[in-house]
């Protein structure tokens, strides 16, 4: 089982990563700035050393005098561990004096002191040069004073300067990171509270949740509360259904016992026969209701119509009419078929359509229709049942398909029939329509299906 991505992690990482990147960039610039400052400061030492040496360079009696001041070299070793080099270069580029022959810096200019970092003899040194014209009476040639030292003091100064800013930047980074983590945690706390609140509820508790103070969570709890309200409504409706169903079942069942009781008081076999016929009627009614309840629950089951097979609607209609004709009350009625040719074909469930037709026929019989027709039409495939009963109030057509609801005009019977048909229609993704027949009064109920077997929905 893989873990779902964490909202907390996403938010904190989303904030911490840019912070970290920014912090690193700041540290880099702080280091660069420290290095630059250190170099500028220590270059001044090189400059001062060449100045001090230049003062001791004299042109007298047609020769050069150079009394190198020891202090000039000492100042080039601020951390007492630098290697120090100096060269006095003559006009022809030869080494006149010094402890090493330093090369010229790449960026030297005649007028000013210039410094450069180079690698020389396997050492990294900072090299500076000054062009000197020794003081004297006559104009002597130009000389070059070069001084260099290794970078210990520069590195130490860079580090010291950097440490100050680095500590401050790191301190800020740490403070910011900790704040982010703490604040995000606290911000997501109401979510956790909501989770606990929901978990703590018992399974039957569908009461509304108290919304937490933040706007986003108010919206979330609002949506949850709407869901809970729908669940409550559904629950209430199921309770009502159970109540109505039990009430409906009670009537024929109590009738059964009443009839039986009456019959037991009689001694006349003819009266027994009457009582038995009445018992039979009641028990059939109870059985019918029970089977309808079963169909209704079967329909509401999630895998109700999984076995969907290609069907011919004409065959369904014929089958329904044939089985209806076996009922005694149908003998006095004109029950017929009006089929189109060829038979429209759909994918569906045979038993469900048989059940739907049975319920529709039942309803028609109950309202006392004398003329009932079952028919089919094509393009789109349709299955219809028409009767010449009293018809219905079309303004109430929506209520008709709700269980145990009846049209105001007489529709005795259990009241589950149309609810079952509606469920079957929904399961076949068909529409259920109630119309007036063209030529006479009554009701025409049409199931309009989507398409033939090869059409993919």
């Amino acid at each position, binding site marked *: 089982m893989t873990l779902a991505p964490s909202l907390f992690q996403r938010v904190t990482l989303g904030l911490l990563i840019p912070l970290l990147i920014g912090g690193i960039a700041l540290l880099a610039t702080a280091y660069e700035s420290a290095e630059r400052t250190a170099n500028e400061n220590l270059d001044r030492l090189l400059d001062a050393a060449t100045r001090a040496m230049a003062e001791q360079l*004299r042109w*007298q*009696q047609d020769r*050069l*005098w*150079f*009394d*190198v*001041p*020891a*202090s*000039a*070299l*000492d100042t*080039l*070793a601020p951390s*007492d*561990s*630098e*290697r*120090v*080099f100096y060269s*006095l270069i003559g006009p022809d580029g*030869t*080494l*006149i*004096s*010094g*402890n*090493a*022959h330093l090369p010229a810096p790449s960026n030297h200019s005649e007028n000013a002191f210039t410094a450069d970092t180079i690698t020389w*003899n*396997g*050492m990294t040194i900072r090299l500076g040069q000054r062009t000197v014209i020794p003081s004297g009476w006559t104009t002597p040639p130009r000389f070059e004073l070069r001084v260099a030292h290794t970078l210990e003091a520069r590195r130490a100064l860079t580090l010291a300067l950097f440490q100050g800013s680095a500590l401050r930047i790191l301190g800020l980074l740490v403070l910011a990171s900790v704040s982010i983590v703490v604040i995000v945690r606290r911000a997501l706390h109401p979510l956790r509270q909501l989770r606990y609140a929901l978990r703590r509820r018992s399974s039957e508790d569908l009461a509304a949740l108290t919304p937490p103070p933040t706007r986003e969570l108010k919206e979330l709890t609002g949506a949850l509360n709407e869901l809970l309200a729908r669940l409550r409504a559904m629950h209430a409706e199921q309770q009502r259904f159970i109540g109505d169903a039990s009430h409906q079942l009670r009537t024929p069942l109590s009738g059964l016992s009443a009839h039986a009781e009456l019959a037991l008081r009689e001694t006349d076999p003819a009266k027994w026969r009457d009582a038995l016929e009445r018992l039979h009627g009641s028990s059939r009614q109870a059985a019918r209701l029970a089977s309808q309840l079963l169909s209704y629950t079967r329909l509401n089951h999630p895998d109700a119509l999984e076995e969907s097979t290609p069907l011919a609607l004409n065959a369904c209609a014929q089958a329904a009419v044939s089985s209806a004709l076996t009922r005694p009350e149908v003998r006095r009625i004109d029950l017929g078929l009006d089929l189109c040719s060829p038979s429209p074909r759909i994918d569906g469930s045979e038993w469900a359509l048989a059940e739907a037709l049975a319920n529709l026929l039942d309803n028609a019989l109950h309202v006392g229709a004398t003329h009932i027709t079952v028919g089919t039409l094509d393009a789109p495939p349709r299955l219809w049942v028409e009767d010449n009963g009293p018809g219905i109030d079309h303004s109430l057509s929506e209520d008709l398909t709700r269980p145990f609801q009846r049209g105001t005009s007489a529709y005795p019977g259990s009241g589950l029939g149309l609810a079952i048909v509606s469920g079957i229609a929904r399961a076949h993704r068909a529409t259920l329509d109630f119309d007036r027949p063209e030529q006479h009064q009554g009701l025409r109920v049409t199931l309009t299906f989507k398409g033939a077997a090869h059409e993919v929905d």
Partner: protein
Amino acid sequence: MRLTRHLQRAGALFLLACALIGARAHAADIVLNAPSAPQQRLVIDGAIDPRLIEPVFKAFQRTHPHVAVHYRNRTTEALFTTYLADPGRQQSADLVLSSAMAAQYLLANNGHAQSLGDAIDPNWPEDARWRNELVALSFEPIVMVLRADLLPKGTPPTGHQSLLDYLSAHAKTLDGKVVTYGPAISDTGFTFAVQDARQSPRYWSLVKALGQVHAHRTASTQAMLDGLSEGRFVLGYNLIGSYARLAAEQDPRLEVVIPDDYALVVKRLAFIPRNAPSPNMARTFLRYVTSRPAQTRIAADGLIGALHPALDQAGTAERLLRTHPHLRPIRLSPGLMTLIDPMKRDSVVSRWRSAFNAAPSTTVAPNGPPPP
């Protein structure tokens, strides 16, 4: 390499001067064979009088009996030119030890030395080591030596100021009887002259006073000591204290005086050359020499001075610094390298000469260009 050519020129002059003045050559190498196997070798190139260093080697061998010690006695100039040219492993010694502070510093500065590792005792004074490549192993004050029995009547000099007065007061009696280093012919003498000049501008008056008594100029402390023993001289200025003490042990007539106004201190510096054949042997030796027991022995010998800061008995630097608060040890800093700058030498020597040869009436200027 103009630089080494200059230095070679100075070195040749030096050797010539040695021959002229007749400095007695103590040129014997020290070869101490290891008494026990397995044999390991330690080769040291040095410019120290073997008498000063032999006790140290002998003591080292007692604690490390498998090491044969070969000390090659050289001149400071020869050492400098040899190691400036980076000899190969065959010719290089494991350790180079010399009293020429400037030369040793330059060699280390220019990368001819390798790291001493952890050989030096961690308590070793900070001013007695540089970059862990150069280490000072001795602490020798620069002294005056007197023949008290031959001096003219009066209070003998105790410091620089009193020496100046003394020379002025007894100029006639002391004529030709005073000896000092000649900075033109001796690196050491040049070093001392520059250091003296740094202490006070009055040094130039002292130089003039020395000139007035026609002081002899030599190239070595030994030459001065020989002359003092023989009675040719009655006063020597700027001698190396360790040799003076050695001579005074032999000849009780010699009186060693550490100047009381200020006294220079010279340190002998050692480094391990880049191409040393057995650098770890050198490190072992240095570890021994800077350890407390070895330093205690060195203090007891009373010759080169023990630098270990934990010791303060007679013969240690600590004791000397306490009893003579005006000691001015020569610092291990880049400024040392100016002492072997040939042009600086010209400048200073020229000035020194003109002060030495000045007519009695002229005043010597501390600064300014040398008069023609």
